[in-house]
């Protein structure tokens, strides 16, 4: 009896052990399959993510390729960048055209506290960049310091780290009396802020700064001149030539299709482009001369800008309205 019981128990033990082994084996196989499946999903996800990233980068290119299927060149372009003149470059352009000093049209450096959200602060950082570039042209030292302090405050509010964005500003007291040093400080501040924001996937914020700067610069240009005064012809032509940069700015904003703050400005800029459509730029190509020793290429060409008083006033009104949307809460 005991022997039978022992044999039954033994059989039961061996069977259950066998079942356990089978179960463990099945479990291992199942786990391996699951692991492989998960691995495949992960790799698939990574590849998809990668391709999504690439497609974001080359959003413009994809659109172009669709429009120009036959254009082999466009298909090969992986990345397109759009540059808009910086506040410093804009100031340099208007300086050469003979600008007048009208500080009352600027956005006061005292307004910093009025701007509390990130998109607004980024736009105003650009606005102050143009205001500072403008007052610098007329050697307004104290006003330059005030604008730089407001810029530093906005950099801090935007979490643009001390060593990246605003450390250059701390040198201002030492260098403010030197015009070139001020230019260097401004250039370093804005380029470091741009690099820092792009490094940290905040290219949209960097674009808001560029937008604010360009709008303020064009607003200043249109508000310091009278159309009928012949001496203003150069600066009025410069205003007309902003037609090209406006297109680049719109394309730059379009490269951030998911940013609502940036896209709020598209209808306004499209309206401005409508006014610019009436500005004619007739372009005559001439020879291109390259001097190897000087590492210099000169593009000889001629452009005639035709802009009438109505177009000028329309541009002035439209840019003022965009600018007011930026500076007013």
């Amino acid at each position, binding site marked *: 009896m005991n022997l039978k019981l022992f044999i039954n128990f033994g059989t039961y033990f061996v069977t259950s052990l066998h079942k356990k082994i089978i179960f463990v084996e099945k479990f291992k196989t199942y786990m391996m399959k699951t*692991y492989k499946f998960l*691995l495949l999903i*992960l*790799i698939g996800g*990574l590849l998809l993510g*990668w391709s999504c*990233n690439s497609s974001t*980068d080359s959003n413009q290119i994809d659109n172009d390729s669709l429009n120009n299927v036959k254009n082999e*060149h466009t298909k*090969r*372009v*992986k*990345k*397109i*960048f*759009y*540059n*808009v*003149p*910086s506040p*410093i*470059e804009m100031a*340099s*352009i208007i300086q*050469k055209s003979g600008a007048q000093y009208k500080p009352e049209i600027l956005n006061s450096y005292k307004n910093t506290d009025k701007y509390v959200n990130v998109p607004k602060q980024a736009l105003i950082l650009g606005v102050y960049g143009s205001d500072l570039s403008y007052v610098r042209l007329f050697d307004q030292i104290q006003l330059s310091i005030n604008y730089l302090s407001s810029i530093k405050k906005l950099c801090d509010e935007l979490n643009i780290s001390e060593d990246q964005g605003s450390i250059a500003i701390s040198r201002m007291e030492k260098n403010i009396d030197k015009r070139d040093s001020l*230019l260097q400080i401004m*250039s370093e501040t*804005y*380029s*470091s802020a*741009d*690099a820092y924001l*792009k*490094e940290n996937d905040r290219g949209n914020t960097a674009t808001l700064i*560029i937008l604010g700067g360009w709008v303020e610069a064009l607003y200043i240009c249109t508000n310091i001149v009278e159309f009928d005064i012949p001496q203003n012809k150069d600066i009025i032509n*410069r205003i007309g*030539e902003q037609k*090209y*940069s406006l*297109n*680049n700015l719109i*394309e730059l904003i379009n490269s951030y299709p998911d940013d609502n703050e940036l896209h709020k400005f598209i209808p306004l800029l499209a309206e401005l482009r409508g006014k610019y459509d009436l500005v004619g*730029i007739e*372009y005559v*190509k*001439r020879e*291109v001369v*390259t001097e*190897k020793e*000087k*590492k*210099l*290429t*000169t*593009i*000889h*060409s*001629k*452009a005639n800008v035709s802009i009438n008083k109505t177009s000028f006033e329309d541009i002035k009104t439209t840019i003022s309205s965009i600018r007011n949307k930026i500076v007013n809460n």
Partner: protein
Amino acid sequence: MKRIFKKTAIIALISVFPYLTNAQCKGFTKKECLPQLKPYVYNGQLNSAVLNEGDVAELLLTFYSGQDYRIFVCSQEMLGNVEFKLLDTDKNTLFYNKDHDYVKFWDFKSNSTQQLIVQVRIPQSEVKSEIVQSGCVSILAGFKE
């Protein structure tokens, strides 16, 4: 178990690689490229990307009359001789660095304001390999006051 751990580590590395490369690229521009643009004033807009061999990138910008410009194409050494051209909007070549020993920067002056395109091309590797060479490329624009 060891193998699973190994595989997981490899997957983790693969997944963070693109982000590491991108961050490296931006650091590269600031340290290696910007100082070389002097004495021109940098326009403050960072145009950098990780490109593979055979890739083309373009920068659209406006040259204003009477301004002096410097275009500097800065790239990591492993990419070899990076080509760059200055094109007008009709895609006519105004300058090609291949004609000047693949020089990395060149100065430009335009008598009239115009829209121009800087086109950059990464050469295809002459050695056939399964690994595609990739690296950072920055297109920098500077102007003189």
